[in-house]
């Protein structure tokens, strides 16, 4: 890899041993992908994937401490993924004991480390840092050092920023030296689509299901999707962005997609159209039957597949303000229709602290509360990642949560029916 004099000096230890090791990490990481150079990070803020003070991850906090002890800080302020615990979310005595006394015992310590390293503010905990209410929204063409998979795919695809699917720790190391290796999704060539996807469904496909189908088919490749604007329009308004947020998270978690193009909608597709499609791109056609097949093949890992759900999570990734309002309208209407006043299953809708704050200022918040549903800033994934919750029958409309935990996936309509019509 060709380094500038400044980069070479850092690597040679002229700015200290710790910074040299950070630079060595990035150079070796880039070498694995034949990166020819390091390029400057140009986004205003970074976003980190590691938000949890999990006891088992002690080596991560030791490494962070080494960095702090060397007097090194992030060159950018950053937001970070959601917190793993929230008292608002139902948990029994044993779960609380496990969360607070066994699993997340490093949470306060780690949050103190994050503050010293450059955390934007005490509320900057969300996987949807790009929401206006959070304020970490990169510009088109910005080079990022992010790692959260759902945020990376959104930033690349919907915002037109440039970021690889980095791992945790690599994200902060980019910010520390101010550079990332130039390869993959940072390059024009790496942003070309090697799959053409044609959506031929009879109605608007469920975002999380369509994303899942595409992710499992193309894995880490870049898809160019035709036919979706028939259903979600050709403007990136609130509804389209929320759809693409959920769609992208599913492509990234059910596969390893870091970038997609939607014909006639996403910025690069609007500018370059079919020029974005690489020669020899493979084709995948998605119709109603294909989506039904994909959903039917999800494994059910509950001990008793007919168990009554004990909890429902909506919002992985975190919901937008508009989604919170829409869910409120839908839950209210469905309860009215079924003659019930409260949701039949404890239901948690998750969003960024800033989004929840904005939501609380609207009349809709009280209406949602009246249905018995709860709002939270929690990371549902972190809540579920332990043997106690693994045994709980939890339902969700998130295909990401389904992929990484024992939660069972249902479409938005199915979830709505389950929580408002008796919990079956």
């Amino acid at each position, binding site marked *: 890899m060709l380094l500038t004099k400044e980069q070479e000096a850092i690597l040679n230890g002229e700015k200290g041993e710790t910074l040299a*090791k950070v630079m*060595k*990490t990035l150079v*070796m*990481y880039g070498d*694995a*992908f034949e990166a020819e150079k390091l390029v400057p990070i140009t986004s205003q803020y970074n976003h980190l*994937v*590691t938000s949890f003070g*999990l*006891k*088992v*991850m*002690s*080596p*991560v906090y*030791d*490494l962070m401490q*080494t960095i702090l002890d060397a007097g090194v800080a992030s060159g950018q302020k950053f937001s970070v993924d959601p917190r793993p615990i929230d008292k608002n979310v139902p948990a029994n005595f044993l779960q609380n004991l496990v969360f607070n006394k066994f*699993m997340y015992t490093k949470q306060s310590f780690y949050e103190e480390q994050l503050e010293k390293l450059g955390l934007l503010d005490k509320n900057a905990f969300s996987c949807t840092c790009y929401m206006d209410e959070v304020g970490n929204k990169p510009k088109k063409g910005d080079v990022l050092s992010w*790692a*959260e*998979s759902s945020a*990376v795919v959104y930033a690349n695809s919907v915002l037109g920023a440039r970021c*690889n*699917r*980095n*791992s*945790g*720790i*690599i994200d902060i190391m980019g910010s520390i030296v101010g550079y990332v290796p130039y390869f*993959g999704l940072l390059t024009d060539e790496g942003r070309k689509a090697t799959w053409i996807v044609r959506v031929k469904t009879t109605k608007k496909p469920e975002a999380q299901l369509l994303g899942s189908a595409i992710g499992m088919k193309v*894995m*880490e490749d870049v898809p160019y999707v035709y036919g979706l604007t028939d259903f979600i329009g050709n403007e990136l308004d609130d509804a389209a962005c929320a759809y693409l947020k959920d769609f992208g998270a599913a492509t990234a*978690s059910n*596969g*390893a997609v870091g970038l997609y193009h939607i014909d006639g909608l996403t910025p690069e597709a609007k500018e370059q159209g079919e020029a974005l499609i690489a020669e020899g791109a493979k084709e995948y056609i998605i119709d109603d039957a294909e989506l039904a097949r994909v959903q039917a093949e999800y*494994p059910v*890992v509950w001990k008793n597949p007919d168990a009554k759900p004990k909890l429902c999570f909506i919002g992985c990734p975190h919901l937008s303000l508009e989604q919170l309002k829409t869910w409120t309208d839908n839950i209210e209407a469905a309860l009215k229709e079924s003659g019930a006043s409260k949701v039949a299953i404890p239901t948690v809708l998750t969003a960024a602290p800033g989004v929840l704050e904005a939501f609380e200022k609207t009349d809709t918040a009280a209406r949602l509360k009246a249905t018995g549903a709860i709002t939270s800033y929690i990371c549902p994934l972190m809540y579920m*990642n*332990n*043997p106690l919750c693994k045994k709980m029958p939890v339902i969700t409309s998130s295909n990401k949560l389904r*992929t*990484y935990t024992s939660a069972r996936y249902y479409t938005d309509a199915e979830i709505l029916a389950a929580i408002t019509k008796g919990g079956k």
Partner: protein
Amino acid sequence: MKKFQGRVITPGNVTAEAVVTTQGFNTLASFQMALQFGDKQVKCGDQNNAELHGKPLIGKALCLPQTIGSTTGGLVLYCACAMHKNPACMLFSGHIDSLAAAGAVLADVWVDGVTMPVIDSLGDEFLAYVKDGMKITVKEDGTVEVE
């Protein structure tokens, strides 16, 4: 005995018994429970991977096409190494992915006293040939002997 030549991501010499997955290796799902709850054998916890689920990973030659799943994957691998609960080596049939590369590099640069050779680009034939229990010898130049 059959020899394969790969590309060195992180170097080292090691001999170990193979465990093989022909599907993507989900690092978080595979290691999380074992690391968290002190499983000495570090049995694979990924219920979506029938080839590996329940099999010990510590000290084994992990043969795989690529890693998949959460972008915490790299730091999970780093933690496994720092806690001395890592595979003996990781051998990729194809090009290494960004998460595994991050984990391998972080362990190499930041963990003292642990060597986990990581070799990629061994070819599809490697993954078709190698089976659980075979003896694997990895050399510093990226040569992998399977017997």
